[in-house]
């Protein structure tokens, strides 16, 4: 922001910088995610399912953007939609779709799945409804649902994430160890994949 601008212009800018039609965007993105998520499990053609999954992932990325977390949104696009889904499609395209669509589906257990999904939904709803009252700890002041405070400025989101991962002092850098462990785990997974697929190294 240019400091030389006069206060009237800054206030005009601030008023116009308010989010545009936020509930509308949320409902569109959430609806898109749910609809394409349903398409993923109802399509018989695996490529159609994969395409629907890409739409789901992209709308979830849009939801991250609405939560002022552009870094997570960018990583979601580059890793899931761009990288993993391309590999998925690579594998799926080699499957004989004609035979796969005629195959009998392994969905005899759908009542169990439905019951499990309903139980999970009930759990979520009960946590949302009752959680605020039940899970507040009056001594430590920690709550499951703390009042939303917009702490991370959107314009420095990446820098904030980096500070949490690698920074020094206070709460900064508190996830360094977890991050390094996760990267080590991935390295082990890569080595395992190489050893399993390649007989002679």
């Amino acid at each position, binding site marked *: *922001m*240019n400091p030389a*601008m006069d206060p009237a*212009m800054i206030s*005009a*800018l601030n008023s*116009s*910088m308010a989010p*545009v039609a936020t509930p509308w965007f949320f409902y569109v993105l959430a609806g898109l995610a749910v609809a394409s998520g349903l398409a993923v499990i109802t399509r018989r*053609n695996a*490529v*159609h399912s994969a*395409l629907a999954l*890409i739409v789901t992932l992209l709308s979830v990325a849009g939801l991250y953007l609405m939560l002022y977390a*552009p*870094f997570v*949104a*960018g*990583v979601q*696009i*580059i890793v899931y*939609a*761009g*990288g993993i*889904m*391309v*590999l998925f*499609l*690579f594998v799926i*395209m*080699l499957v004989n779709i004609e035979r796969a669509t005629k195959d009998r589906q392994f969905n005899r257990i759908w009542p169990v799945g439905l019951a499990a999904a309903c139980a999970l939904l009930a759990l979520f709803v009960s946590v949302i409804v009752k959680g605020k009252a039940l899970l507040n700890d009056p001594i430590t002041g920690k709550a499951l649902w703390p009042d939303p405070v917009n702490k991370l400025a*959107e*314009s*420095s*989101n*990446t*820098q904030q994430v980096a500070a949490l991962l690698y920074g020094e002092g206070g709460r900064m850098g508190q996830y360094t160890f977890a991050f390094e462990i996760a990267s080590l785990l991935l390295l082990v997974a890569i080595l395992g994949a190489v050893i399993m697929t390649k007989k002679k190294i």
Partner: protein
Amino acid sequence: MPNFVMSYLGSTVTPGEAGNQFWALMYVLIIFAGVSTAVICMNWLERKALAHFQVRLGPMRVGPHGLLQPIADALKLMLKEDIIPAQADQFVFWVAPLIGLLAAFTVYTVIPFGPSQAVSDMNIGILFMLGVSSLGVLGIVVAGWASNSHYPLIGALRSSAQMVSYEVAMGLAVVSAILMTSLNASGTGTLSMIGIVQAQQQQGIWFIFKFFPLGFIALVIFAIAMVAEVNRAPFDMAEAESELTAGFHTEYSGLRWSLFMLAEYAAMIAVSSIAVTLWLGGWMRPFPNLLHAPAWDFIFSLFPGLTFAGLAAIAFIGTARMPSDSFFKIQRIGLGVFAALLGFIALLLLVIAVAGRSADASVAARFNQGIGYVYWFVLKVAVFMYLFIWYRATWPRYRFDQLMRVGWKVLLPISLGVLILTAAVGVIVR
């Protein structure tokens, strides 16, 4: 004039940052029109340059020196019958070119043509560009599958494998450039496209020359990987015509096929813009810290006008050299009018350069600066676009296993080494 139009004009930030939707839309339209025009020019230039590389004339019939050939081609493609194979997956076949086109054009929202000449400045700019441009391969993959034919499917498989392999080396090269942005007093880097250029401005060096030769090697790796990323020769395995007829778009015809071409050229411009932004100083003119006197500013601000004047001179010479036969009369008049148009643009740019030579904040001066930014950015991108043609004319196509070997066993280790060395040197220097 409504307030939302006028209030932005004095601003020094992008319309996205200023929250001005009107000017954001205007910028989107300008960029869309500009990129489409650039694709048309590139189409003509590629055919002409390739022809001259191969000692041919290239298109000569439609308009003087084939200047109207792209328009004739576009008309032909639009009027052509649109065939969908009977066994193809109708919906996916229909949606595939649109995926590629959407991905190619979406990235232009963050390309910085100048410090305020961009639609928006995102905090995750470069991440957004890499992510969305990697979505473009989905269009190719899905098109090859939906055609329900052997050659397209093989093209699609090759394309996806190639894209995933080269993205790794490309990403590491980009990270080494981003590391360089953090070499300032606060030690905080940036992913924002505008921020990356401003970091080069503050450090007074383009990242291609930073920690020589580390920045240079990173740029070379990126330049190789980006050719593979947009499926251009010598890495055009997805459409290798000697092996796969036309690869993923064998079954496509007419307007759909032209959408694939449009997406390919738009993606070429986009990845070239990434290279220019990260390593070649983006919108900055050459030697801004060595030759920084106002006189030098003025001399460099004459370049846009002089470029157009040169183009006009070439067109005038072409008019004069046209055979005097009456058969060429219309072509001659047309080329003369085209030359006059170029000359008029040159005159306009020179007048702006003279009127806006003072460094104050007057409208003419700001307009002059803006033209300068866009001109230097576009010029640097144009060099890369010419390189794309040059590669295609010079190098034979790689075999697929060679392509994979280069990607994984050469580019990836080198880029990893450059990244580690850049980090080490950065820590020592700080």
